[in-house]
C-alpha cells in the first residue's frame, strides 16, 4: 500500500513537473511571440502629416540682419528685385503671410496664402501677391531628388507637421541635412558655383529652424566662418517664454542668496569667540 502510494505520488510529481514545464514553454513561447509581433501590430499606426496652420492665420517675419552688398556679391545684383521671397529684403523690414485656404485631400495638402513682401511700413495695405504651396501627404512619394531653390531662400517658409519627420523622410539633395533631434532644423550647404558658374559666388550655409506648427521660426544665411549675411526670425514669442524665464532667474537668484547666507552662517559659527 505504502509502495503504491509512493508510486502514485511519484507519478503525480512527474505529471506536475511536466505540466509546469509545459506552462513554462507556453509562457516563453508567448513572450517571444508577443515580442516579435508587437512591432507588426503597433506598426499600423503610421504618421498622418497635416498642415499646422489654419485659415486666416497671419505670420510676420522680421529681418534682423541683411548684408545687402555681400548678398549682391554672392547672388548677383538684383537678388532682391525679382519676384522671389527676398523681394525688398533689408535690415528692419517685415514680411507678412495670411493663410486664405487650407485644402486637404487623400494625397496632398494645398495652402493658398497672400504675401506682403518685405517693407518698413507699419500698415500693411493691400497684399503684393497671392501664392500657393502643395505638399504631398506622404513625403516618400517625392521620388525625384528635391532642391528647394525656386525662390532664393533654398528652404520653404512652411512645412507639414510633424516637421522633423516630414523633412527626414523627404528625398532631399546633397545640399540638405536634416537635424530634428532637438529642434526641427534644416541645414543647407551650397558650395561655390554649386548651382551654376558664379552662382553662388561664395560657399554659403543656411540654418533654418521650424516651430511645432511647421512655420520657419529662424533663418540664418552664412558665408565661410559663420559670418551672418541674412538673419530672419518669426516675429512671434509664445506667451510662456518670458514668465518661465522670470521664474527661472528668480529661483536661481534665491538659491544663490540662500546658499551665501548659509555659508556665511556656517563660517561665523565655526569662528572661535
Amino acid at each position, binding site marked *: 500500500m505504502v509502495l503504491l502510494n509512493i508510486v502514485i505520488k511519484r507519478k503525480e510529481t512527474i505529471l506536475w513537473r511536466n505540466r509546469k514545464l509545459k506552462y513554462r514553454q507556453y509562457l516563453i513561447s508567448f513572450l517571444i511571440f508577443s515580442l516579435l509581433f508587437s512591432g507588426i501590430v503597433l506598426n499600423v499606426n503610421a504618421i498622418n502629416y497635416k498642415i499646422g496652420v489654419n485659415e486666416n492665420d497671419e505670420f510676420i517675419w522680421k529681418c534682423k540682419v541683411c548684408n545687402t552688398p555681400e548678398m549682391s556679391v554672392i547672388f548677383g545684383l538684383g537678388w532682391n528685385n525679382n519676384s522671389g521671397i527676398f523681394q525688398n529684403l533689408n535690415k528692419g523690414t517685415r514680411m507678412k503671410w495670411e493663410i486664405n485656404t487650407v485644402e486637404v485631400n487623400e494625397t496632398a495638402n494645398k495652402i493658398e496664402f497672400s504675401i506682403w513682401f518685405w517693407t518698413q511700413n507699419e500698415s500693411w495695405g493691400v497684399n503684393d501677391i497671392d501664392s500657393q504651396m502643395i505638399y504631398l501627404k506622404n513625403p516618400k512619394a517625392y521620388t525625384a531628388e528635391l532642391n528647394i531653390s525656386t525662390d532664393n531662400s533654398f528652404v520653404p517658409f512652411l512645412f507639414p507637421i510633424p516637421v*522633423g519627420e516630414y523633412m527626414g523622410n523627404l528625398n532631399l539633395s546633397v545640399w540638405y*541635412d536634416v537635424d530634428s*533631434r532637438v529642434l526641427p532644423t534644416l541645414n543647407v550647404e551650397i558650395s561655390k558655383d554649386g548651382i551654376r558658374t558664379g552662382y553662388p559666388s561664395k560657399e554659403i550655409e543656411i540654418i533654418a529652424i521650424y516651430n511645432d506648427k511647421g512655420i520657419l521660426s529662424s533663418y540664418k544665411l552664412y558665408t565661410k566662418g559663420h559670418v551672418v549675411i541674412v538673419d530672419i526670425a518669426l516675429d512671434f514669442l509664445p506667451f510662456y517664454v518670458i514668465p518661465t524665464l522670470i521664474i527661472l532667474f528668480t529661483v536661481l537668484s534665491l538659491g544663490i542668496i540662500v546658499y551665501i547666507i548659509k555659508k556665511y552662517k556656517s563660517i561665523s559659527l565655526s569662528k572661535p569667540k
Partner: protein
Amino acid sequence: MSLITRIPNRLKELWEHKVFRYALILHIFYFTLSIVLFFFLYKEKNDFIIFYNVGDIFLNDIENLYNQTNYLWDFRYFPLSALFFIPYSVFNFETAFIIFNVFNIILNILICIILYKIILLVRNKDHENDDKRVILYVCVYLMGLPHVLNYIYGQINLYITLFILISLYIFLKYEEIKWELIGSVILGIGILIKPTAIFLIPFLIILRFDFQNKQVKFDFSITMVRLLGVILPVLLNFILFVIFPPLWEGFLDTNFTGTNPIALNFSFSITKLITNFCYFYNIPFNQLYILFGVVCIIGGLGFILFIFRRFEKDSIIYSFAFGITIMLLVYYDSWDHHLLNLTPILIIMIFNLPRHSEITNSIKPSLFFFSFFDLVLVGIWYLIYPLFPFNFGSTIFLLVSLYGIIKYCYKKKRNYFMEE
C-alpha cells in the same frame, strides 16, 4: 551556495530595503514609459533608428556608412561600433527596439552589481560597515531620470558605463601587468562603441609630481601597456579607414566640421554654450577652434592639475572622474543621458572619500542634480530657447564636481585611513 540559490536569496534580502523596492518599481516604470512613448511619439524620432540602420549598412554597403542621407540623423561613431548593432537588424524595427531596451535593463543590472563591488573594494574605512548606504546610492543611480531619455532614445550609454566600470574594477582589483592590459582593452572597446570616453586616455598615464622628494614620477611600462591596450580596439577602425577612404572623410566631417556641431540644442557642454551664444548673437565663429580652445583650457588644465596630485592610492577613480567630467564639459553634445557615464563614478568617489569629507559636499549635490533635476532644465530649455537658448545648470554642477576633484587632489592633510 550555488549562484542559482544565491540570487533569489540576495533579491529577497534587497527587497527588504524600502529604497530598493522604490528604485526597482521606478526603473520598471521608466522602461514601460519609454516603450509607450516610443510607440506613440518617438518611433520616427529616435537615436535607435540610426543604430538599427547602421548594422544593415555595415554589412551591405560599408562605403556609405557615413553617407548621412541614409539616416534620419547623423551616424558619427567609429565604423566598427556598427558590429554591435548587426544582431538588431535581423528583427523588424519595433521588435529590435524592445529587445535593445531589454538588453539595456540587463546592462543596468550588471552596472549595479559591478558598482556595488567597486564600492566595497574602495570604501573608506570610516564608512558604515553594513551595506545599507551602498544600496541607497546604487538605488540613486537606478532611479536617475537620465535613464528615461536613455531608454526613449534607444541610446547606447549603458554599454560605455559598463565597460568603464569593468575596466575600473580591474585596475583597482589587480596589479599584474596583464590585468592592466585587459582593463585598458575593455576601456578601448567602450571608446570603440562611442568615443565619449576618449578623454579618459590621457588620464591613464601614470605621471605624478612627488612633492616629498621634489621629483616627477613616471611609470613608463604600465603607461605604455595601458595606452597600447586602450588604443588597440580604436586602431582596428583605421584598417577600415585605409581600405575604405570615404569612411575617414565622412567620420571627420560628421564629427568635427559638418553642420551638426552648430545646430542649436540643449547640450550643457561649455563648447556648446559658446557656439549657442555665437549662433544666437550672430557672432562669427569656427566650431573647431572653439572646441580646441575649450579642450586646451579645461582638458589641459585638468591634466596638469592631476599630475600634481598629492596621492596615488585609488587615483584611477579620480582619473576616470577627471576624464568623464572634462569630456562632458568640452564635447559639442553633452546631453542628459550622457550623465549615466558619470553618476556611477561620482558614487564611487563619495564612498572612497572619508565619510564626513567636505569634498563630498560638492560631489553629492552634483550627483543629485544630475540624477533628478537636469531633465527638468532640459524641459525648461524648450520653453525659453527663443530668448535664452542656454542649458547651463549641469555645466555649473560639472564645474562644481571638477572643483571638488581638484581640491581633493591638493588636500595636504589626508584622512588617516587613506594614508594607511
